[in-house]
């Protein structure tokens, strides 16, 4: 709560001009008939999708060229709020010209980004992010009808927060890597739970398969178990051979450090290790975006050192080559 939260009724102030424009003048609203598809020698797909909790429903039409599998035209009908209509309009537009396989990769976040006026300002207020999720689901439905497979085929990982599209594995990783202890921290790190809030705990706007409260509790328990195991390994670190130590450092780098760097297009490599006066000197070399990045000598460098001392041994000193 703060100054900006004190006066209500600000919902529409946070809609982008593009959302307003699409709501007032939808471009791709309409239907495609069998006859129209037949003239173009295309296959007509009509996909219906509805979200019970929203009372929203959308019907997506695709005209697909059977040779190239390119969606040559797309239209929709939508029963829903303003943002649902605007999202459906952009969804249809984004589908046109893509192959079915490409279209399936469109997410609700792509739809929301396409509705932004400027790259850094969200197109809709947080609780309305949810409205674009349906637009994304109906694409999967259309693709499943075209390919005659089940919709779940297109979901390769378990999505916990649909609004921000954060997967179960990402949330678990982030909790472990950053030693997160609260839901607020998870939201800060991943944006999961920042929008419609359904995924935080049962009883929200929409029923979910996974809730952040459960994931946090279970992952914390896992961390505690792992700590016990690490404790034993750590005891023995001083007695390990240099090769064993090197392997352990490599393991921690691979599991806890590389995922963070990869997210920004960077990487790091362990070049050498030496034992000096009771210290373990680790020599690293940055790759990719990390090489030359200012943070590689400040924030990133700190993170690597802290992570290795915490997860491997206090004797570690990191040197950049």
């Amino acid at each position, binding site marked *: 709560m703060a100054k900006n939260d004190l006066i209500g009724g600000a919902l*529409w102030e946070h809609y982008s001009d593009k959302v307003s424009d699409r709501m007032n003048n939808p471009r791709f*609203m309409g239907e495609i008939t069998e006859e129209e598809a037949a003239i173009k020698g295309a296959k007509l797909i009509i996909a219906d999708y509805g979200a019970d909790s929203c009372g929203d429903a959308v019907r997506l039409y695709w005209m697909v060229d059977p040779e190239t599998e390119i969606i040559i035209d797309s239209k929709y*009908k*939508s*029963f*829903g*709020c*303003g943002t649902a209509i605007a999202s459906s309009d952009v969804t249809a537009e984004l589908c046109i010209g893509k192959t079915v396989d490409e279209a399936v990769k469109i997410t609700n976040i792509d739809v929301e980004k396409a509705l932004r006026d400027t790259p850094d300002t969200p197109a809709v207020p947080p*609780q309305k992010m949810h409205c674009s999720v349906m637009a994304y689901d109906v694409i999967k439905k259309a693709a499943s009808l075209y390919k005659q497979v089940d919709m779940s085929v297109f979901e390769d990982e378990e999505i916990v927060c649909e609004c921000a599209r954060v997967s179960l594995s990402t949330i678990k990783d982030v909790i472990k890597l950053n030693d997160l202890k609260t839901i607020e921290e998870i939201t800060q790190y991943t944006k999961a739970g920042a929008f419609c809030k359904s995924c935080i705990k049962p009883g929200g706007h929409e029923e979910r398969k996974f809730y952040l409260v459960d994931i946090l509790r279970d992952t914390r328990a896992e961390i505690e178990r792992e700590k016990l195991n690490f404790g034993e390994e750590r005891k023995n670190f001083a007695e390990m051979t240099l090769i064993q130590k090197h392997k352990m450092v490599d393991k921690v780098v691979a599991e806890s450090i590389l995922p963070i760097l990869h997210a920004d297009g960077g990487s790091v490599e362990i070049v050498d290790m030496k034992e000096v006066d009771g210290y373990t000197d680790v020599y690293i070399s940055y790759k990719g975006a990390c090489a030359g990045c200012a943070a590689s000598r400040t924030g990133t460098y700190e993170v690597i050192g802290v992570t290795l001392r915490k997860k491997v041994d206090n004797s570690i000193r990191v040197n950049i080559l």
Partner: protein
Amino acid sequence: MERVYLDNNATTLVDPLVKEAMDPFFTKMYGNPNSLHSFGTEVHPYMKLALDRLYDGINADDEDDIIITSCASEGNNTVIKSLYFDSVINGKKPQMITSLIEHPAVSEVYMFLEKLGVEVKWLPVNKEGIIDPDELRKAIDPDKTALVSLIWANNETGLINPVKEYGEICRENGVKLHLDGVQAIGKIPVNMQEIQADYLTFSAHKFHGPKGIGGLYIRKGVSVVPLIHGGEQMAGLRAGTINTAYMIGMGYALALAVKNLDYEATEVRRLRDKLEDAILSIDDVEVIGSRDKRTPNTILASFRGIEGEAFLWDLNQKGIAASTGSACSSESLESNPTFKAMEIGADLAHTGMRFSLSRYTTEEEIDYAVDAIKSAVERLRGISSTSNKEYI
């Protein structure tokens, strides 16, 4: 026509006469009425006149109290928490009764008390959207029930509940009755000599008075524990320097509203019915509750195939102000609880739209609104309907 205001159940414009009457009390007669000097005492006659108007307006007995509050929410909190404090002081475990169609100013207070261990019974509504007196009779336990809080006229539907019967039932059982009169006062006659309620709450801005001022009626012989402790204002029942200008404005606003009750029942009702007839001439529209059972200014309608927030958006583009309880229009994505409680067939949680008139609504405004509503319905159904007219 630039804009048409059809959201008078949310708030109303301040009658210019009321505004004028309040004016001297900001810069000329600004004394604190508790002061003994002339700056304080010169305001007293105006405050007494305001009280006379409030007492006359609801036909209260001079032995009853009308406490000036900051709003109806304060009045409701005072009553409900007062009975809770009573029970805490006396070491009793109370049961309280309310309904599923209360305004949040009542329901949220009860939800809070539930967390503190109070047993709250939530009465449902019948098929007509009314809280059935038999349900109240069944729920009351004369030994345990400390308070019954019920809404006189519902803010969403305008449906008027049989409060006279509630009064009789509560009196028979020796149970205190608190009525939320916010949407009744100024729209229909309110006579506290006829209705056996112990408490009544109201708010000036719903009857062309200013925002930030309200009243709490307390029947003679009934006590209340203050919500706000402090100075000795309002006979020690509500501390805080009295908002003299607003109190005087509220008194005048109520007098004017009572004077206009006939106009509400005839002309406002005629315009409401005209709007309602036009709305009902549109296909697949349902209006909630029969006209005779509603406040004369209110229409709650369900437009199939049109989501409430989108409808509100289109109406706003045309300058029409209305209200939807649609889940998609709320900060929390929760639909309006009254809509959920109404088992009337229409999908109000998604398609409900409320139009509420006032004595300032004109025939021209209604004609303009009818055209605007029809064109919005046509456009939005064009987006939601398929060629064979089925709404998805």
